[in-house]
Each structure stands twice: as C-alpha cells, then as structure tokens.
C-alpha cells in the first residue's frame, strides 16, 4: 500500500482553506439581496454544487469512451469515482434548490425543466450504480458501465429539451429570462465575486474528492486481487 502522497495532503489543506474563505464571502462579503433576503445566499453553493455534478458526469462519460477504446481498468475506476461524486452533488443541488424554492416559489418542488432533468439525471446514475452491482465479472462490469454512462450522458440534453418545451419558472441569472421566471435578481460586483469564488472552490473540492476516491478504488482493486490469490492458495 502506498502512503498518502504529499501533494494530496497539501491539496486537502488548500481546499479546506478555500472552503472557509468562500463561506466567509457568502455570509459576510456578499450583500443581502433586497427582495429575497438571506435565503438568496444559498444560490452561491447551489450553482457550485450543480456545476460539480455536471462536471462529474461529463468526466464519467469521457472516461467511458476512453475505457471502450483502451480497455484500461483505470478508466473504469475513474468513471465510478466520478459518478459517485456526481450523484451526491446533484442531490445537494436539488436539496439546496428546494430550500430556496420554499420561500421564493412557495413550494418545495415544481415540475420545472431543470428540476425534472436533474431528477432524471440522478435516476440514470443510480441505475448505473445498480447495473454495476449486478455484475460480478470485472471486465464485463467495466464494459457495460462504460456503455451505460455514455448512453446516459447523451440522453440528458434530450431530456432537458423535452422538459423545456413545457414552460419554465426557473430564473436564468445569466442571459435572458423567459417571461414568467420567478425569483430573478441582478448581481452586484460583490455577489459576482462570491459566485465566481464558490465555483472555483467547488472545482477544487471536486478534484480533491476525485483523487481520494481514485485512491480508494485502487485499494479496493488490490484487496480484491489479494482475496483471489488467497482463495487460490488455501
């Protein structure tokens, strides 16, 4: 077993520091939004965790393609790691959105395209994890996983499009809103800084978690091989 790399320890510390600074910015640097009040502050992390979710699923799809091309097991480990992180952060994205929506939209949940798409995306990747659980042969598990993760990623924009053809009430903070969007606001420079810094922070959170999860995946693989060796000897 290799010891924990020095660089990873530094990255851990760096990420924690970034996280604390971003928390400070969210609560003390960014001004209170005039109409929505304090609950608007959830926006900074809401978008940032959503961004990590999308980044993870994109990474998983790319890893899937690379696996099918090279048949190298490390890409399979990469894909699972990314999907697991993506599932957690997409859930956080939905949960923080709900907290904001309760006072602003006056409901925890509505069948808006973004909400619908996020939920279906979550279900796709749950299905991916279940598919892997049902297969014992590691090569087949990796192959099927790669195929499904690619199919899933392609279907997400189509799901969004189909849900978008219904009307939407989700605000688009960047770019033009469709008429009927509720809870929109314009950002002051301080808000914009906080927002960018949150994105930056969570990108590092993603990289840090990925690294840890990849290491864990490698260890799990080693354990599996040792078990196999042991059962052959006895």
């Amino acid at each position: 077993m290799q010891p924990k790399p020095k660089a990873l320890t530094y990255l851990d510390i760096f990420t924690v520091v970034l996280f604390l600074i971003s928390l400070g910015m969210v609560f003390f640097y960014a001004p209170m939004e005039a109409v929505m009040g304090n609950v608007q502050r959830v926006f900074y992390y809401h978008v940032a965790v959503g961004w990590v979710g999308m980044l993870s699923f994109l990474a998983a799809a790319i890893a899937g393609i690379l696996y099918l091309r090279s048949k190298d097991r490390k890409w399979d480990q990469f894909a699972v790691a990314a999907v697991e992180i993506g599932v957690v952060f997409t859930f956080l994205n939905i949960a923080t959105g709900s907290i904001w929506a309760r006072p602003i939209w006056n409901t925890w949940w509505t069948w808006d395209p973004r909400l619908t798409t996020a939920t279906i995306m979550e279900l796709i990747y749950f299905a991916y994890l279940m598919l892997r659980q049902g297969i014992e042969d590691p090569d087949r598990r990796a192959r099927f996983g790669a195929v499904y993760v690619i199919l899933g990623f392609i279907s997400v924009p189509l799901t969004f499009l189909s849900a978008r053809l219904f009307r939407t009430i989700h605000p688009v903070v960047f770019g033009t809103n469709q008429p009927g969007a509720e809870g929109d606001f314009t950002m002051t420079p301080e808000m914009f800084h906080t927002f960018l810094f949150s994105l930056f922070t969570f990108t590092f959170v993603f990289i840090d978690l990925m690294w840890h999860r990849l290491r864990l995946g490698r260890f799990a693989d080693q354990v599996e091989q040792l078990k196999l060796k042991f059962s052959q000897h006895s």
Partner: protein
Amino acid sequence: MTFVRATAAVIAKDLAGEFRSRELLSAMLIFAVLVILIFNFALELDIKTRSTVTAGVLWVTFAFAGSLGLNRSMAMEKDRGCIDGLLLAPVDRSAIYFGKMIGNLVFMLSVEAIVLPLYSILYNTNLFKIGFLGVVFLGSLGYVAVGTLLATMAVQTRTRDVLLPILLFPLVIPVLIASVKASMGYLQGIEAETIRPWLNLLLVYDTVFIAVAFMMFDFVVEE
C-alpha cells in the same frame, strides 16, 4: 447485401419462433389489456377525462408491455444458448442488433395494432388518425432501439428481470414525453405547427440512439 440478408435472417428466426410458440405476444397482449383495465378504474375514464388522458394511458401501457417483451426476447436467446450461436455466425454483429431490434419493433407494433382498435371500441374514441399512427411508430422505434441494447446488457446480469425497466425508463423519458404530447395533439386535432417540435424531438432521438446503439452493440456482446 450480406448485411441485409443477415439482418433479415435474424428477423425471420424471431418471427418463426414466435409464430410457433406465441408466448411473447400473448403475454404482452394480456398484460397490455390488464394495464388498460387498471387505468379504467384508477382514473375513471369518463368522456371528459378520456380526451386528455388517452395518450398518456396508451403510452404507459405500451412502455410497460414493451419492457416485458424486450426482457423475454433477450432472455430466450440467453437461456437456450442461442446468442452464442448467433455470435459465432460469420456476419457483422450489428446485423444481429438490427435483426433483434426490428423483431422487437414488429412485436411491439403487433401489440399496438391490437390494443388500439380495442381501446377505440371500449371507449368509443376514434384513434385512426394518420398523424397519431405515425407518432406511435416513431415512439416505438426509439423505445426498442434503446431497449434492445439495454435488454442485451440486462440479461447478462444477476438481477436481470428487475434491472431492465430501471435502466431503460430514465433513458426513454424524452421519447415518452414527446410521444404523449404529439399523440395528444393529433387526437385533439391541434394544428400541426404546435406538434412539429415534438415530432422533431422524436426524429432526433430515434436517429441519435439508433446510431449510438449500432456503435455500442459490439461491446455488450463481446466475450
């Protein structure tokens, strides 16, 4: 030419087998009728509700019956070892995919061809509008294109029967939404301009997923 012949051979094999046993079609059909029966009591399909929910009821029925058929059609290949024989044949593997896919499409369309008139009679609604039938075809095509690929994967897992719907439904949601919306549009006689985007979506989905499944099939059968 050999590609077309190989595909046709796989389809002919599936149809011949089904013609003799009729186990797949009869199961799908009875299941479809049962689902409609349950909807009848769950939703109280009186004249007012009928005009708005007919499309939804029909597509849920097709989706459920379809997943039953897909599971069975691939499980049959696996259990009797036919798939190994098929894979040994010196033809392009995608010919096997297209053969199975078109076979499944024929089964699904056959079930629909019986369920639709039955529904028309039971609820005294005219479903025979050319646009609606086109939507039924496009929707079923997209459904079996993804379904055949995923069923091939699902039967090779431990939890196979439970797994297929879980893998399939989140991926075919765009097809189901678009099909329900377009069907509803045609059945209520809404002008073609509002239905067009849904048709485009169906066409895009069908094209993209047939192409992707065609490229991926090799990976799910290689051993």
